[in-house]
């Protein structure tokens, strides 16, 4: 199963339209999409606007790979779970976010193991064609290390 997610904050019609079209052309592939408050209604795939934490985690775990907006929450989840993640950034020129920070995220994760970054739908289409070659990345949470350093900086024992 391919799990598609646009995150909790905003819809991402451009991604969902692409995936719906792709699903139409690839009817044998199981896709589940979390689409947010999308104006576009998919007709070729299973979807839900929002997911509970449990639903999200279980879909995430059972997927072969993730397709996502360039949201740090999803990227971190994918790296920690060692799932390949295909990433396309929201473009604020198209009204998809407030500013271009997702493009910055996309650039930062280009070349990172497990992250397949796509500048546009053409690259996304190419990425989906090469899905058999996806390799998972890996990362460890540095929460503890980070909070220890902060505690030291604050002189908290």
């Amino acid at each position, binding site marked *: 199963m391919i799990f598609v997610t646009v995150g909790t904050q905003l819809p991402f019609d451009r991604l969902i339209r692409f995936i719906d079209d792709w699903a139409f052309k690839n009817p044998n592939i199981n896709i589940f999409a979390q689409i947010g408050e999308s104006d576009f209604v998919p007709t070729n795939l299973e979807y839900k606007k929002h997911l509970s934490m449990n639903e999200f985690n279980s879909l995430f775990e059972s997927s072969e790979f993730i397709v996502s907006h360039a949201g740090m929450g999803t990227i971190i989840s994918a790296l920690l779970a060692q799932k390949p993640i295909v990433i396309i950034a929201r473009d604020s020129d198209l009204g998809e976010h407030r500013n271009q920070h997702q493009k910055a995220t996309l650039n930062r994760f280009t070349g990172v193991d497990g992250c397949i970054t796509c500048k546009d739908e053409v690259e996304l289409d190419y990425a989906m064609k090469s899905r058999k070659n996806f390799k998972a990345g890996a990362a460890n949470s540095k929460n503890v290390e980070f909070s220890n350093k*902060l505690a030291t900086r604050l002189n908290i024992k």
Partner: protein
Amino acid sequence: VLFRKKTVWIDSIANAEEISKSGKLAKRFSDIWLTQWKHLTTEDGPEYLGSII
């Protein structure tokens, strides 16, 4: 210091090319002002103490 408590701003790791607008506004209220990207540090801050991943 606000209400006699130390304050810390940790800018989201999502801001990889510049510190967020909220972060810039919060600077003057923060005892410690942090970014999660080393390349965003400058002499006047933000500081870098690592990141969540």
